[in-house]
């Protein structure tokens, strides 16, 4: 059996993402442009609109409407919501229910062993929620404050002048497969701003391009995990938050599952695996399908209905993967784009929101003094480093990294780290990037969905609401030397059936793509495409 080394088959980031063209004469002029209408971007917009109402603020969102590309478990720490809306109460927020109980299990193929809840995973005082619903609500708040929210407009490139970011260019719409304009062609639009805030979410292409261009490194490469999630309508309510470790993940993969109650009739269930897994035939979607048949979950789901399906990557590198700079000339990075996720507590939403609010404070002050230059935005870096975002991430800085060597040693080390407040083992565990991790080629286990509890990828994509125009040009850039083994690796990696092995080659079905970005991490590159493409999540 052979090996697949993903990096050998990955194309570089497209060069056009840093664009030195002068902005079009028709460019829309804004004071502040936020790229990405998720929790980070909208929190930034809301805070900024309140503190500096004279500013013209725009939020570009690639989804057809707000929230349709947002996905999380989610158990939310409400502290950032409280800080952003001090006049509101918890019951005013679009959250589903308070966490009333929790349990952690170690799973085997047929059994489950309840284990003590690790201190980092305690969720008392937190709420289960649908991130889509939260984002839609945040969007309403932002619009009420006069923010220009533009759903359906992905940003394709950063407009730069010298070292300074001066705006973005949106993607064209209405191109055919050969990239020729059709009669609904939409010309790209330029937007200029004194400050561009990148809130693209996980594995944002402009964030990657800017860091490459500005040579902003990090101690460790960013690591990613892929989460596949389903929302089910169930007959009986679930009374607690469940997390599991172990099966159906291979021993040498990092990750786990969740199952959360979303009110009396719905549950969220999902599986996350680090993209440094070693078995090329490992498949997160299929593993989740198998997992739903486990006695721990089967009874809950039987008689229920799959309402929605989705997938997304999570930046898991933690403290040591944070970019050395979070801002530059005319640009800032917030939320998942910057990697503000604390893996041991499985939290990122409140950090995303908080980073947006910190960015807003810096922008308001900087623009009052008239500049969006690097020096005036650098106080955002200091603010973040002094905030609990980085404090919390520092405490758990090596925990995810410890699992690179396998599950058992990871558990032992993570326990010691918790006991020592992060001091053990001292220093930094160095990590290879996911794309550098070699994969063993193994024969896959075949899985046949029953279409009742388990579903194929094609059917799952339908349940994401994805109705992307079939005739869009491909937005996926496949790298060199794709063999049958590599094609198989991609086919298992992608949860949405975008990739299929065809003979010894690769077949790509771009309209299936639901923007999870998994292959951007270890396979074909994802680039922004026509606005409104991709999933249409309502419940994720």
């Amino acid at each position, binding site marked *: 059996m052979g090996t697949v080394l993903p990096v050998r088959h990955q194309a570089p980031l497209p060069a056009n993402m840093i664009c030195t063209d002068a902005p079009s004469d028709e460019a829309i002029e804004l004071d502040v442009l936020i790229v990405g209408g998720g929790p980070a971007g909208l929190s930034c917009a809301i805070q900024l609109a309140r503190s500096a109402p004279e500013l013209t603020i725009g939020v570009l969102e690639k989804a057809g409407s707000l929230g349709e590309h947002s996905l999380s478990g989610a158990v939310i720490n409400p502290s950032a919501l409280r800080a952003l809306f001090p006049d509101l109460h918890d019951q005013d927020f679009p959250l589903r229910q308070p966490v009333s109980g929790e349990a952690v299990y170690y799973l085997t193929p047929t059994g489950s062993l309840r284990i003590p809840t690790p201190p980092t995973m305690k969720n008392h005082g937190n709420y289960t929620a649908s991130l889509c619903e939260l984002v839609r609500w945040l969007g309403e708040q932002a619009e009420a404050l006069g923010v220009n929210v533009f759903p359906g407009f992905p940003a394709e490139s950063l407009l730069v002048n010298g070292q300074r970011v001066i705006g973005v260019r949106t993607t064209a719409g209405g191109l055919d497969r050969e990239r020729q304009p059709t009669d609904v062609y939409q010309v790209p639009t330029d937007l200029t701003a004194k400050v561009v805030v990148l809130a693209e979410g996980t594995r944002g292409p402009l964030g990657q391009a800017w860091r490459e261009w500005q040579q902003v490194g990090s101690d460790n490469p960013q690591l990613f995990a892929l989460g596949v999630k389903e929302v089910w309508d169930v007959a009986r309510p679930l009374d607690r938050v469940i997390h599991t470790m172990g099966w159906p993940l291979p021993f040498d993969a990092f990750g786990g599952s969740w199952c959360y109650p979303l009110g009396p009739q719905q549950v969220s269930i999902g599986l996350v695996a680090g993209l440094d897994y070693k078995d090329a035939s490992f498949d997160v979607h299929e593993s989740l399908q198998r997992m739903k048949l486990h006695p721990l979950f089967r009874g809950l789901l039987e008689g229920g209905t799959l309402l929605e399906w989705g997938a997304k990557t999570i930046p898991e590198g933690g403290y040591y993967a944070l970019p050395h700079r979070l801002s530059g000339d005319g640009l800032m990075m917030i939320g998942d784009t910057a990697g503000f996720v604390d893996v041991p507590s499985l939290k990122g939403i409140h950090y995303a929101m908080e980073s947006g609010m910190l960015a807003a404070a810096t922008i308001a002050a900087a623009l009052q003094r008239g500049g969006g230059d690097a020096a005036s935005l650098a106080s955002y870096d200091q603010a973040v480093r002094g905030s609990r975002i980085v404090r919390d991430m520092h405490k758990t800085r090596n925990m995810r990294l410890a699992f690179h060597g396998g599950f058992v040693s990871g558990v032992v080390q993570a326990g010691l780290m918790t006991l020592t407040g992060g001091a053990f083992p001292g220093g930094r565990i160095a990590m290879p990037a996911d794309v550098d991790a070699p994969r063993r080629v193994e024969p896959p286990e075949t899985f*046949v969905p029953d*279409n009742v509890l388990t579903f*194929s990828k*094609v*059917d799952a*994509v*339908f*349940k994401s609401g994805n*109705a*992307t*125009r*079939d*005739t869009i040009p491909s937005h996926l850039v496949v790298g060199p030397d794709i063999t049958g083994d590599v094609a198989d690796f991609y086919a298992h990696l992608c949860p949405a059936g975008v990739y299929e092995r065809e003979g010894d080659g690769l077949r790509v*079905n771009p*309209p299936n793509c639901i923007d999870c970005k998994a292959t951007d991490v270890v396979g074909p590159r994802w680039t922004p495409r026509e606005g409104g493409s991709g999933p249409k999540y309502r419940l994720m």
Partner: protein
Amino acid sequence: MPNILAVLEVRGGALRKGANELVAAARRLADVNGETVDALVCGPASVAADGLGAAGADRVLQGTHADFAHYAPDGIAAVVAAIGAPYRAVMVAATATGKDLAPRLAARLNAPCAMDVTAVDLQGDAIRVVRPVYAGKALQTVDLRGLAVIAVRPGAYATVAPGRPGVAESVAVPSFTQRLAVEPVRGSDKGSLDVAEARVVIAGGRGLGDPKHFALLEDLAAAFGGEAAVGASRAVVDAGWAEHGAQVGQTGKTVAPELYIAIGISGAIQHLAGMRTAKVIVAVNRDKDAPIFKVADYGIVGDLFDVVPALTAAVKTAKAH
């Protein structure tokens, strides 16, 4: 006594097919309370309408006017406005023409209007109808009080026996202004039938194995004699085996033919979303566990290269009779 007026469609001086069906629907409603059915026929001269009695019409009212050589909505509306008020209901077939006419009649008669009705009954003094809404994803039941205009979806009613006298009478055509000048219908210039319009859809999927095997489907469609169109699943359209216009499914066309024959289609939800409201679904697939069999009314498990030619021959024979 309140009665039912069925306004029939005339094209080129002749009744359109479906006239008997509409009269039958009117008959069923009239029979609930022992009422009578009047059929209104508007043509350039007296229209041959001998069969309407057998279909259930008590009277056949003929309105003749030179402008009725082709569709004259303003003229027909004037006739119905003149004679319609005493009726309990005015019924039309929910065809393109009927749907154009019904709201005009309703406005002239100051009556509520229900479109695309699949079931009609009396509920006390009200007329109770059922009609598909939300693209067939839900069924709405509504009561209409007083005189109502009901557009009945074609295919919803079978003709009934026993017949009625069908006494021919002429009806005065009041003078009217032709606000809209309509030209005679000209045959569709489309080369082939669109999947969204065909009465029968023959759809192929990856099971065909090769684009050249679409010929098998075209043969079967041809056997239906001009009322069948060939459709395709997204997988084969993506593979370039069929045109995008033929694609049935969530991102293609939504079809609701009377007969849908899925050949070599596994039945991904995205495909099912586009055809599950077909009246009858037949599936031919080699894999007995294919999801398509869960939605198909009738299935044949087997090699499509055996089954389809046999089916084509059988349809040809049936159509020859």
